[in-house]
């Protein structure tokens, strides 16, 4: 989820590894199946259960652990540990809290206690006031002034906080803040907008030795959440004197808060003019920034924090990078690291694309270069934007004004302005960005090639600026003046063993998240087991794949063709794997092959066959499989014509998308025309109307990136977009279809079906956003057979070697093929854990030459799993962070994560998944139902079940009548238009415990939109499809019958 992503898998995995080395038995609880840490091999007992006090207390009672280590699981883990302490669970079972003690957690997380502790330590903080009511907030205004910062206590990534520029804004923010804060408390801070923002990563051991691992400077001054800021390590603009003062204060903070062992992140605001320093906050745990700091310096914070937690002192731990020095030191680096956030505002229409004190980015890319310019430009191209902004026609004034309130494209605007020769001062005046950064940016703006003068060579991340030789092969590339006579001074210790290069997934984004990193890590493990060197290329600092322990050699590089080819040239690998990193490496396949890189697994030709709409359509026809009628249109005119032949309703989308970007269902010619006007702007330079086939795509990428030898061309900074003609796909939309996802293995001759997942929501809700169940709960044996056969035939016909994902829709009893992805899919980790078969590893073995026959896979029940459990995957949606966006599911993917619920039956598994996703189903109370006419008939079933479970049913007129007609008691409720008290009043008053609302087609700001928004804002479970409504009702009924569901241990399930 936003504010807490892969970085905690990285830290958790490191902790598991070292604690096991130390001989501890590990019990792991996490609800996210797409994590390496939940692999059964990593712990002795693994529970994929909701991270809530109830289930975790059960686990504790069952496993009787000696200690609980909560400092590596982010805010969720800390809050959970606090709850388990407060409700006496820990004491009852004699469990010791290690890593950070209760008081330290409380002190750092409770702004009131924290403020007091800072005051005692003589450290300054912004003027502030604590408010538990709106009145208290207003009273504080005269003292704090406006703007002021509102921050709810105990929320993650600043959720629910913001900058109040006037009183109405203040009232709104405080009201929301009081709600989202688990302790109903908000803190008001006097604003220091525009001051410099700095973070220090601090480590302390039991003997009170303290070191600073890394300093991080936010290029964006105070006011933009560090998670959304472009940041640079080490700090660039502070004098040594000022930096040492920060260092002293950071040490004072960790001591004052009382974190006895482990890592903490301390944030400061610094006024560059007056050199005033204010403490902003400290996180008494491993954080997003510490993952960044670890990757930036080579100092494995989480690993060392885990060792410290079990009693080691820093001097007793080796720095495994040098092998000769202790971990008790401060890394010094001779390169520059830049982190860029990745945003997804385009997916949440209706929400303002502005950056503030609460985090909105969905992922990040990090780049390392010998200079800031190199690192910044590499980071720019590491982001892999779908749609690089084109600001060419925007006036200077408009661009400057746009900078007043920071947005996701602020740096593109700054670069554009600098390119046009606008003065640094003018930009500084609006952004308060330090002039050093701006003058560095000017160099890039004037000549994107400037940073890449000279010769590219791979250097080591060695924690010590070359003072000692590095043992650990962790590399980045930099450009240097060629040495007279000498060859490029690569530091790569290649060795003699054959190597396999695994291309990672790049920055997390909606549609391509941690699942793909999971697959890459499994590939690395498999390559190593095969006796070859695993070589990882990736640029996402949050991930396990970029842990230098994961592979034999790690290249921290962008995933563009010429960056990857540079690695291939030094590695001379036996093979390159593009199947596991999602669409990112797949797009490079053709270019790599063209450049002579040996691809493993499915061939470029086969990839193209599956990805090219036309060729794939022809293949389906040839094999006699049904597919929704479709057409491709290059122009508005085309589209409107073809639409008639395809037939409404239509599912429309641009050709280039992943995760259903800009995908919509249109029911009429007008709807289509409206969509086209938005997605097919007349501008011929529409950057992303690229051809659909991965082949053409990669080729475009290739020449976009100049000759492999050449230095990167400006396309790669994402500043200029490649030009090509747009294309739009039109598909007949299959209504009320059941969607099915299949993951399968194929060695070219034989196929093995890994998992068949039935979606809970009907087709039309993106596969990434819909809940799904394995084994399918309502597809007959006959249909399952059809699905297996189709998958087999497709895999063989396409020529898959490795993994294949096929999406089907079952419509009126008929099987339709929606798409086939010739690569590891989002669902591979879920399937692997549900079925107990490591699909990614097996696929990798196949790519390395083994046959399915060699893998001794279980026979029978193919795709249904083994054992008597049911697994449900549910999506985690970020609507609560994007105010004003409609909380309804559709063909465009919006989820930022997923959770898994495992139980003996479907309803219980579904309930677990809901709870894990953060919206536990109510056990009783009032259910509000309002559905579209087409759903009215079905609504009664939901109402009936809920009524039998003792719910009071309320509904709007139409729905109420439909339900009453079937004899279920229901109370009518006013629509918003029908006057108070209406639906919203009920929700706001907290009189509703469950909302079932299916959208009435498109149309912004409908009643439905208002209702869903209110439900999300008040954290009330809101089901937006009838199918999910039925499942929810059944789950509630089951929970009432069986009480709190039992927790299940993965290792026992798959024994």
């Amino acid at each position, binding site marked *: 989820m936003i504010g807490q992503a892969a970085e905690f898998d990285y830290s958790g995995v490191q902790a598991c590894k070292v604690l096991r080395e130390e001989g501890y038995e590990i019990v792991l609880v996490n609800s996210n199946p797409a994590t390496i840490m939940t692999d059964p091999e990593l712990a002795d007992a693994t529970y994929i259960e909701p991270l809530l006090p109830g289930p975790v207390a059960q686990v504790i009672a069952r496993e009787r652990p000696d200690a609980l280590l909560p400092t590596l699981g982010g805010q969720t883990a800390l809050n959970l540990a606090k709850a388990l302490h407060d409700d006496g669970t820990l004491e009852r079972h004699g469990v010791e809290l290690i890593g950070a003690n209760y008081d330290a957690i409380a002190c750092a997380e409770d702004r009131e206690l924290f403020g007091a502790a800072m005051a005692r330590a003589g450290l300054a903080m912004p003027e502030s006031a604590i408010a538990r009511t709106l009145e208290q907030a207003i009273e504080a205004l005269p003292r704090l002034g406006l703007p002021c910062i509102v921050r709810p206590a105990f929320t993650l990534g600043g959720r629910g906080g913001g900058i109040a520029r006037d009183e109405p804004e203040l009232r709104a923010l405080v009201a929301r803040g009081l709600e989202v804060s688990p302790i109903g408390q908000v803190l008001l801070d006097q604003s220091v907008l525009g001051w410099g923002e700095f973070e220090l990563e601090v480590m302390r051991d039991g003997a009170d030795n303290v*070191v600073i691992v890394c300093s991080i400077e936010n290029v964006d001054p105070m006011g933009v959440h560090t998670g959304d800021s472009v940041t640079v390590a080490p700090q660039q603009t502070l004098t040594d004197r000022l930096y040492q003062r920060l260092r002293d204060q950071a040490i004072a903070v960790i001591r004052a808060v009382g974190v006895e062992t482990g890592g903490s992140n301390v944030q400061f605001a610094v006024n560059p003019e007056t050199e005033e320093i204010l403490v902003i906050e400290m996180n008494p745990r491993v954080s997003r920034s510490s993952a960044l700091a670890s990757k930036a310096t080579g100092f494995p914070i989480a690993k060392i924090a885990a060792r410290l937690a079990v009693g080691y002192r820093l001097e007793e731990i080796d720095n495994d990078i040098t092998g000769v020095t202790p971990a008790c030191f401060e890394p010094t680096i001779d390169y520059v690291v830049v982190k860029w956030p990745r945003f997804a505002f385009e997916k949440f229409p209706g929400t303002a694309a502005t950056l503030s004190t609460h985090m909105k980015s969905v992922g990040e890319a990090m780049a390392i270069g010998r200079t800031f310019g190199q690192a910044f430009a590499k980071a720019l191209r590491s982001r892999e934007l779908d749609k690089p902004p084109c600001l060419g026609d925007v006036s200077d004034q408009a661009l400057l004004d746009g900078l007043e309130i920071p947005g996701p494209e602020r740096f593109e605007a700054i670069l554009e302005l600098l390119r046009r020769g606008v003065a640094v001062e003018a930009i500084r005046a609006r952004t308060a960005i330090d002039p050093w950064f701006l003058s560095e940016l000017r160099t890039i703006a004037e000549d994107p090639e400037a940073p890449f003068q000279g010769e590219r060579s791979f250097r080591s991340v060695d924690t010590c600026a070359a003072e000692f030789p590095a043992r650990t092969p962790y590399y980045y590339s930099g450009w240097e003046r060629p040495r007279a006579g000498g060859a490029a001074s690569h530091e790569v210790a290649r060795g003699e063993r054959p190597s396999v290069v695994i291309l990672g997934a790049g920055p997390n984004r909606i549609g391509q998240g941690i699942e793909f990193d999971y697959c890459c890590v499994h590939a690395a493990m498999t390559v190593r087991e095969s006796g070859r060197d695993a070589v990882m290329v990736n640029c996402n600092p949050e991930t396990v794949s970029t842990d230098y322990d994961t592979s034999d050699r790690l290249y921290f590089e962008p995933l563009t063709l010429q960056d990857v080819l540079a690695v291939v040239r030094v590695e001379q690998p036996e093979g390159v794997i593009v199947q596991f990193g999602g669409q990112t490496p797949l797009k490079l396949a053709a270019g790599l092959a063209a450049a002579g890189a040996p691809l493993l697994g499915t061939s470029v030709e086969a990839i193209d066959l599956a990805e090219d709409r036309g060729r794939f359509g022809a293949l389906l026809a040839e094999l006699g499989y049904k597919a929704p009628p479709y057409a491709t249109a290059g122009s508005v005119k085309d589209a409107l014509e073809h639409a008639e032949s395809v037939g409404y309703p239509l599912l429309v989308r641009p050709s280039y998308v992943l995760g259903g970007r800009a995908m919509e269902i249109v029911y009429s010619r007008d709807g289509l025309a409206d969509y086209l006007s938005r997605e097919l702007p007349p501008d011929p330079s529409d950057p992303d109307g690229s051809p659909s086939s991965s082949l053409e795509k990669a080729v475009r990428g290739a020449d976009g990136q100049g000759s492999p030898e050449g230095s990167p061309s400006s396309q790669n900074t994402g500043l200029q977009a490649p030009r090509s003609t747009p294309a739009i796909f039109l598909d007949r939309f299959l209504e009320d279809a059941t969607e099915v996802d299949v993951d399968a293995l194929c060695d070219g001759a034989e196929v093995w079906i890994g998992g068949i997942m039935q979606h809970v929501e009907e087709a039309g809700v993106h596969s990434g956003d819909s809940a799904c169940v394995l084994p399918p709960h309502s597809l007959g044996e006959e249909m399952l057979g059809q699905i297996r056969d189709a998958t087999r035939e497709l895999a063989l016909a396409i020529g898959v070697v490795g993994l294949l994902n096929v999406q089907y829709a079952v419509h009126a009893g008929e099987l339709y093929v929606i798409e086939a992805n010739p690569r590891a899919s989002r669902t591979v980790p879920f399937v692997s854990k549900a079925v107990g078969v490591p699909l990614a590893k097996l696929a990798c073995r196949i790519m390395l030459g083994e046959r399915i026959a060699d893998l001794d896979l279980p026979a029978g029940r193919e795709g249904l799993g083994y054992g008597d459990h049911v697994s449900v995957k549910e999506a985690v949606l970020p609507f609560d962070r994007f105010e004003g966006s409609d909380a309804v599911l559709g063909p465009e993917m919006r989820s930022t994560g997923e959770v898994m619920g495992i139980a003996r039956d479907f309803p219980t598994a579904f309930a677990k998944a809901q709870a894990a996703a953060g919206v536990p189903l109510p056990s009783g109370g009032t259910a509000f139902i309002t559905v579209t006419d087409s759903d009215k008939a079905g609504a009664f079933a939901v109402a009936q079940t809920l009524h039998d479970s003792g719910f009071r049913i309320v509904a709007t007129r139409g729905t109420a009548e439909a339900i009453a007609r079937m004899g279920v008691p229901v109370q009518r409720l006013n629509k918003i238009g029908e006057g108070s008290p209406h639906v919203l009043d009920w929700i706001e008053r907290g009189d509703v415990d469950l909302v079932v609302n299916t959208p009435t087609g498109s149309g912004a700001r409908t009643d439905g939109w208002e209702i869903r928004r209110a439900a999300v804002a008040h954290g009330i479970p809101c089901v937006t499809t009838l199918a999910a409504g039925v499942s929810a009702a059944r789950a509630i009924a089951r929970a009432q019958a069986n009480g709190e569901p039992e927790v299940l241990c993965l290792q026992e399930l798959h024994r």
Partner: protein
Amino acid sequence: MTVPSAYVLLDDGTRFDGVACGADGHAVGEVVFTTGMSGYQESMTDPSFAGQLIAFTYPHIGNYGVSSEAMESDRPWARAAIMREACDREDSPGAEGGWLRWLTDCGVPAISGVDTRALVKHIRDLGAMRGGLFPGATSEAEARGLIESEPPMAGQDLAAEVTPTTVSRHGEADTGPKIAVLDTGIKGSMVRELLARGARVALHPCTTTAAELLAEDPDAVFLSNGPGDPAALDYVVQTVRELVGRKPVWGICLGHQLLCRAVGLETFKLPFGHRGANHPVKDLQTGRIEITSQNHGFAALGPNGARTIGADEPVRWQTDFGEAQLSHVNLYDRTVEGLELLDVPGGTVQYHPEAGPGPHDSLYLFDRFLRRIAEAA
């Protein structure tokens, strides 16, 4: 790629090209590297760098300009700055001037655009060596000649270059302990830390005799940091020898080495020295670890000639003045970082508790030092 206009040439003929960015002309001396990521101006003005050309491992140097507060002495002593990416910025909030402008005004040649990492690895593997920074116009042959004519660091008395010609006195009159400094190139930060603790400080030329110093009747004698080879400073060592036992004697860096030699211990040249702000040092009395500021090319030998100390024990030396006990050890290479004289008042540290640049972890040593003076008095 910008055309090279200057180059670094090492004793062994290795050459690194770059762009001239400081004063005109050339500089020769010992080429060393420092791994500190900030504090470039402090380093340049630290007299301990006299006779040396500094290669900065951190690529961006000059980011926040220069200011009078960052002066460790009244002028730069390092002979040249070797950098990857130098910049000249007056517009930094705290800056009183631009870095490169300042170097130029001070007559210090500098070079940017150098592959400093390659240079540093070369020095790390082969040891610090003589070398020079030369304008592109200078032929390598000529450059070689200039390097040859530069005496090697071992055996050089550079203290004579940096020591003051006359005594200077600091701190309010007639209060606080009187500390006589044998000034072999003291850093401003040391004086500041002493004054901050109420001491009165007199800086004496390092040629001052013991008799002259004793005539001042100081409460303690302080041996400062400084450049060059302690083995070349026998005249200072002799002076110190006459002071030990008569007055409490404390030393930092070169001062540490001088005291060691004065009590009969040996010093040796480290392969490429310690220069930076991140070396862990363990205080054997408290068991605490300090992250230290370091700048030295020579070190004291441990008991019976050992270059490194195996265990974290306060091992002892037999000296001409009774026993000495190891007080601090470097956790990177386990060399001697400090010792205490047990039978006469005195002690030293090899590293830089005064920081400037670097962490403040070790400032407590100045308190310890003044406490001991009080006890001795």
